[in-house]
């Protein structure tokens, strides 16, 4: 058994071992071992040149990462939470995502940025939001969200090899989750969505932190005779549209589970694409299960009420199935 945290660390170790050009930097990633202990022990193993603590200035160290990438390195930058990444949004959007285009293809930015996303740990409104949907809006970035042990272990190495910037979103509630991981687990593709549970009656689309919610809901639905298919998006940009449409063609019903807010969200994008490309496959209105449109509350019961829960997914699927 291994934890999601350990799987991520194994991925980092892989990258540091296999490519001289990689290094990890971020707030407290070295001596403290990372705010969520993902990089614990890597400083001792790889030394201060490869695992670097940075000042508390997201804009500066993400900018430094972009510079290093332009200079031929393969930097992996950790930002503590997605909320703090907003301080580096100018670097991410105006530099990392645009330089290839603005240089006429001369300057690519092989940068990987890892960050924690999501709520559920009583960390209140400044540490709990799910803004990966925002980043998925931006051309020039690839957005991935590992939800399983295999993906936590294998997505990083593939991302490091990508010639362009990749943002990797780790849901905060997953770090302590444990599961089986094959000893020979390695790199995985970051292009395709995967069906985590095949089914025939309704498609539940989820990713990252909501995958478990969707799978549990599918289990509960199965008890009452509803055979739900669960699709893990894995890559939020570019979306694996064929996988989504294929599933709809089988089940004819859709529930999108997204921890982002509903308005202008990734779930809205998916719903729109299905309406554009697969309207005549739909046997019921599309359902969405999203976070309540409030800043994430601190109080446990309020936080719970604000987030997509298994019961909400089950209820939405039942409405869709009718």
């Amino acid at each position, binding site marked *: 058994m291994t934890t999601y945290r350990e799987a991520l660390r194994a991925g980092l170790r892989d990258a540091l071992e296999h490519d001289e050009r990689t290094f990890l930097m971020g707030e407290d990633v070295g001596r403290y071992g990372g705010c969520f202990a993902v990089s614990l022990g890597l400083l001792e193993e790889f030394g201060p040149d490869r695992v670097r603590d940075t000042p508390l200035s997201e804009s500066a160290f993400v900018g430094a990462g972009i510079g290093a990438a332009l200079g031929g390195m393969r930097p992996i930058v950790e930002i503590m939470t997605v909320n703090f990444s907003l301080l580096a949004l100018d670097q991410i959007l105006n530099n990392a995502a645009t330089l290839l285009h603005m240089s006429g293809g001369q300057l690519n930015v092989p940068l990987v940025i890892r960050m924690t996303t999501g709520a559920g740990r009583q960390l209140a409104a400044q540490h709990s939001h799910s803004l990966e949907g925002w980043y998925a809006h931006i051309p020039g970035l690839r957005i991935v969200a590992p939800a399983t042990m295999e993906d936590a272990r294998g997505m990083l190495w593939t991302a490091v090899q990508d010639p362009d910037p990749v943002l990797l979103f780790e849901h905060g509630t997953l770090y302590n989750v444990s599961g089986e991981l094959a000893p020979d687990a390695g790199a995985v593709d970051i292009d395709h969505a995967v069906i985590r549970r095949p089914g*025939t009656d309704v498609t539940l689309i989820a990713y990252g932190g909501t995958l478990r919610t969707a799978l549990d809901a599918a289990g509960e639905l199965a008890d009452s005779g509803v055979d739900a298919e669960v699709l893990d998006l894995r890559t939020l940009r570019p979306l694996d549209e064929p996988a989504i449409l294929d599933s709809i*063609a*089988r089940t*004819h019903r859709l529930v999108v589970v997204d921890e982002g807010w509903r308005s202008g969200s990734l779930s809205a994008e998916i719903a729109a694409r299905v309406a554009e490309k697969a*309207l*005549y*496959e*739909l*046997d*019921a209105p599309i359902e969405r299960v999203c976070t309540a449109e409030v800043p994430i509350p601190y109080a446990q019961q309020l936080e719970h009420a604000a987030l997509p829960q298994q019961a909400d997914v089950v209820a939405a699927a039942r409405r869709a199935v*009718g």
Partner: protein
Amino acid sequence: MPALGADMTEGTVLEWLVKAGDTVRKGDIVAVVDTDKAAIEVECFTSGTVSAVLVPVGSRVPVGTPLAVLAAGPGMTEVGPTQDERGPAPETVPHVEPGPPAEVRLATPPTRKFAAESGVDLTTVHGSGRDGRVTHADVARAIAARTSLPAGRVRISPYARKLATELGVAVSSLSPTQARRAIHARDVRAAAQRRAERAPVRHSQDAEAMRRAIGALMARAKREIPHYYLSTTIDLHTAVEWLREHNLHVPIPERLLPAALLLKATALAARRAPQLNGHWVDDSFRPADSVHLGTAVALRGGGLLTPVILDAADRSASELMAELRAAVTRARTGALRSTDLTAGTITVTNLGDNGVESVHGVIYPPQVALVGFGAITSRPWAVDGLLGVRPLVTATLSADHRASDGATGARFLSRIAALLQQPEEL
């Protein structure tokens, strides 16, 4: 002329059971149509009065041709609405095709004005007045009918509407499972199923016409479908032993034949291989939601029919055995249902009884795969490094290369073989 099979392009009226002036109710058998493969009874989809029979007995017309004109009329009120009708049905013809333009109706100017203001098309209103004149009351009735059943504004899901078109089910004949809800795909399927169950075949066909129909269909299959063929030999030792043991302990009518296990394994494997289970329509593959297993049945006088076992993957081996016996009986007594002609998603042919080793069959359009089983024979076979004598069967797959590739087919056959190693699970 309804489409009573995906390959049917025209049909011949064999018999009219109604004539102009007759009152008919929804569900009544009004005509018998010859599809070349079988004679099928055509049901009336709405109640009313036959105002004209358009296609005489013996005429061969393309699918979609109006066969007769029905008018909502005095007959309607005499028979009274049936339970599932929510209002008088508009003038229509059997099946979903639009009727021919009706003659211009007589009406007084105030009635015309009333109709125009209310957006009522006078040609769709039955005139109850003198000489068929449309009265103010007729228009008012038309408005009331429109309110209770908004034609063309039915709440129906986009998929259900598409399915209804494909299955030839009139949207106006559908009602949702629960009041105040939209019509979903299941309502369409249920309607198609009800229609199929109510329309048994009445007349068996002469051998020559059937020969021609089989010839046309198989020629089309060979012309249009790029077949690829795979075969594998399956050790049925475990399955045969299990059957023997099972059959020792059940009453004789409940005995299972190997065919039941072969069908079950095929159905289960087909469910896991969506690329092999469905229809090729309009240059694209449409996977089916369930496995409806066609079973090729040879007729005693020659010829071939493929009755269908619906939802075969969801049935136990015993249920399949019973279904198979029923299907063979249906085929041989000429009592096929409409679903037997249209619903199959994959077909199995079993020539084992004739002693042949294997059969490389021709796919039944618009399906995309056909599975063949030869005779179960005892042969030398290597087991755990030693030569033993085992009951073996050769399973073959003919598949449509447009819908699937060899690897898919190979996995499918291997799955059948694997499933047959655990007969108790079937």
